[in-house]
């Protein structure tokens, strides 16, 4: 028998849904977008013993089908089958936390109203048993009239049994009429009352919450130690990104350099050698070497998320977030934005209020994402001396930290301005779960870590390759006329565009080379460094390789220009992918345009202030 069925995976947040999804489908996953809206559609596939092809649809976590966020709306529409062209769901797999039956069963009762066939994964059963949460499983199955499988998804226990139940159910999957309606307050209370009856009948003994978690929380949620530890963790994160990542990064850099030399050597003095070696390999290589940093920052975020600490961080930061009108939950998207604004913006979906979500989206590109590091690193090492300050700190390190701090300050400042002048929202209830601590599973962390790495490399392999080729052409053609006195790039398209736009940027101290590098840098920030390399390498008489760019810039730029460019990079919308994601997430051109405009105005004004201040102080002589 060959058959295809669609299974919807539904559950409360924090009940191990992602772990179950990964355990069931392994690497057979695909991420796409729901048509028309912007929510990520996560599908996975598995085949049962009886050769039934199952498509598992991972739906955003929810407490009720009554929806108040875009995420929850998707869950409702897919489950009810009212979502446009999406395929109908044949079976609902509801996952509930065995240590918190109350909220899980409430959702189950709502799901039963939809009339769709339903089965339950009673997850985290190991913890429940250890903590003394006991009940009569047979009785519970009878009460709910559906199959229940005990699982510990994170250890892949109960998965085979779960698949076997799917096999048993498939020959007889019929949906009855849907009687679900959004529950009003009294119906919501009725659901609770019904859950209470069920729990009475199955003779539940309420266990004791994890003592270990409670002990950890007395420290981690302590008003003083808690904040201190949070800051220490953030510091460790930056330390990891900026010093531990250097070793693999340097290794990759030498690999790229070797490959570039090798390829260029294969086609000496030809256009094709220049295109592949100097254009593609050097350009893409300059970006790919940031993979270790992206992996480290993603690893931190995943570990904090899976261990249960992320919710604590949001708890500790809630008041600070609230002071500028943001939701405590906004902390997570903003923290993710340190890796890249794109996952950060996608993480805002958990914020229920539309205006709150828009504010978080609009400010997240101001955090110092990892793509800014190449240009920061280059300019800092070229213009900031390695003086030791207070006998302990390196001045370069302090400047880097300051750049991060400025980013955060402006995130809060801009959020405040947006929130109180433009995107006022009614008062919002701010409520979330603090799950007990868990030790993250290595397999699960690895699976989640592969995703950002893959999308980063895909971007490097597609958009960045394309841009490097275009840039190489623009900077190579047209050739300089015979007997030309100026460097060849002056005659190329890049040179022309740079010269043409230079007057706009002169007040903030940018020369035409910078302007020319900013153009490809619009596509992705990290390209600007290799673009500068390309521009100067071509414009110089002798071969100026990228390692010498630092030295070269020291002589050709003033300190004022360098600081002005750094400032520009803190604020400027130098990333088309981010704007594209904002368009997708908000489903309109309005918000990306607003974001682009405010960022470019802010960048110009701030760069102007910095440039003029440095000139006034006379620091440019240094």
């Amino acid at each position: 028998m060959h058959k295809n069925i669609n299974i919807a995976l539904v559950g409360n947040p924090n009940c191990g849904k992602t772990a179950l999804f990964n355990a069931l489908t392994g690497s057979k996953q695909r991420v796409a977008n729901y048509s028309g809206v912007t929510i990520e559609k996560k599908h996975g596939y598995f085949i049962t013993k009886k050769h039934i092809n199952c498509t598992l649809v991972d739906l955003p976590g929810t407490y009720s089908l009554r929806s108040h966020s875009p995420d929850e709306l998707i869950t409702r529409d897919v489950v009810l089958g009212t979502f446009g062209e999406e395929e109908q769901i044949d079976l609902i797999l509801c996952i509930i936390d065995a240590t918190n039956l109350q909220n899980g069963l409430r959702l189950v009762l709502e799901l039963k109203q939809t009339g769709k066939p339903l089965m339950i994964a009673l997850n985290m059963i190991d913890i429940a048993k250890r903590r003394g949460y006991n009940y009569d499983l047979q009785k519970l199955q009878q009460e709910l009239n559906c199959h229940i499988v005990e699982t510990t998804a994170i250890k892949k226990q109960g998965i085979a049994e779960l698949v076997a139940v799917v096999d048993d159910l498939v020959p007889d999957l019929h949906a009855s009429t849907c009687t679900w309606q959004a529950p009003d307050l009294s119906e919501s209370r009725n659901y609770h009352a019904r859950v209470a009856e069920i729990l009475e009948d199955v003779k539940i003994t309420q266990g004791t919450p994890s003592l270990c978690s409670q002990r950890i929380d007395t420290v981690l949620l302590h008003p003083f130690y808690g904040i201190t530890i949070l800051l220490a963790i953030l510091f460790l994160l930056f330390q990891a990104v900026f010093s531990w990542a250097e070793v693999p990064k340097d290794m990759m850099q030498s690999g790229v350099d070797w490959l570039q030399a090798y390829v260029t050597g294969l086609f000496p003095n030809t256009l094709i050698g220049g295109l592949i070696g100097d254009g593609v390999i050097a350009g893409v290589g300059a970006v790919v070497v940031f993979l270790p940093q992206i992996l480290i920052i993603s690893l931190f975020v995943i570990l904090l998320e899976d261990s249960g600490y992320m919710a604590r961080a949001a708890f500790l930061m809630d008041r600070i977030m609230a002071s500028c009108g943001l939701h405590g939950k906004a902390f997570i998207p903003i923290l993710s934005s340190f890796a890249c604004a794109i996952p950060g913006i996608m993480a805002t979906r958990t914020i229920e209020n539309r205006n709150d979500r828009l504010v978080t989206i609009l400010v997240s590109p101001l955090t110092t994402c990892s793509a800014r590091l190449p240009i920061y690193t280059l300019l800092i090492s070229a213009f900031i001396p390695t003086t030791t300050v207070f006998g302990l700190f390196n001045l370069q390190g302090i400047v880097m930290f300051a750049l991060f701090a400025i980013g955060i300050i402006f995130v809060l400042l801009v959020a405040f301005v947006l929130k109180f002048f433009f995107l006022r929202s009614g008062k919002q209830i701010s409520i979330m779960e603090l799950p007990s601590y868990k030790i993250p599973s290595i397999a699960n962390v690895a699976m989640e870590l592969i995703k950002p790495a893959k999308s980063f490399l895909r971007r490097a392999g597609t958009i960045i390759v394309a841009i490097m080729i275009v840039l190489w052409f623009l900077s190579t053609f047209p050739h300089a006329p015979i007997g030309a006195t100026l460097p060849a790039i002056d005659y190329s398209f890049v040179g022309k565009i740079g010269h043409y736009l230079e007057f706009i940027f002169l007040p903030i101290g940018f020369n035409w080379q910078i302007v020319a590098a900013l153009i490809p840098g619009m596509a992705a920030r990290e390209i600007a460094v290799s673009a500068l390399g390309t521009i100067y390498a071509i414009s110089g008489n002798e071969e100026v390789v990228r390692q010498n760019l630092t030295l070269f810039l020291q002589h050709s730029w003033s300190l004022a220009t360098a600081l002005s460019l750094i400032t520009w990079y803190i604020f400027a919308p130098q990333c088309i992918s981010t704007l594209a994601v904002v368009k997708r997430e908000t489903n309109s051109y309005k918000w990306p345009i607003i974001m682009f405009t405010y960022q470019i105005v802010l960048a110009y004004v701030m760069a102007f202030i910095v440039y003029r201040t440095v000139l006034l102080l006379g620091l440019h002589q240094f």
Partner: protein
Amino acid sequence: MKRLSDFKKLQSGVITQIDESCISSNKGFIAGEVEARLLEMGFIEGANVKLLHKGMFGGDPIAVRINNNNTMIALRKRDASVILTKEVI
């Protein structure tokens, strides 16, 4: 009768009523929304609540355990003020 928002650390009580009226008079709240959200998260009449942690600034937000569940719920004091309790006997 005591509001959950007025609890001291480690104080517990039983929910007697969830009464939105004391904050929904403030503009901007959709009627019934706060109550509905609290209900969905497990704040229901008769449930036992215990305040476990308070935030650094002004003791806000607070972390509460309902019915000895394994997970805690974090919420802001303003929202917790609609939850009325009586002392456990």
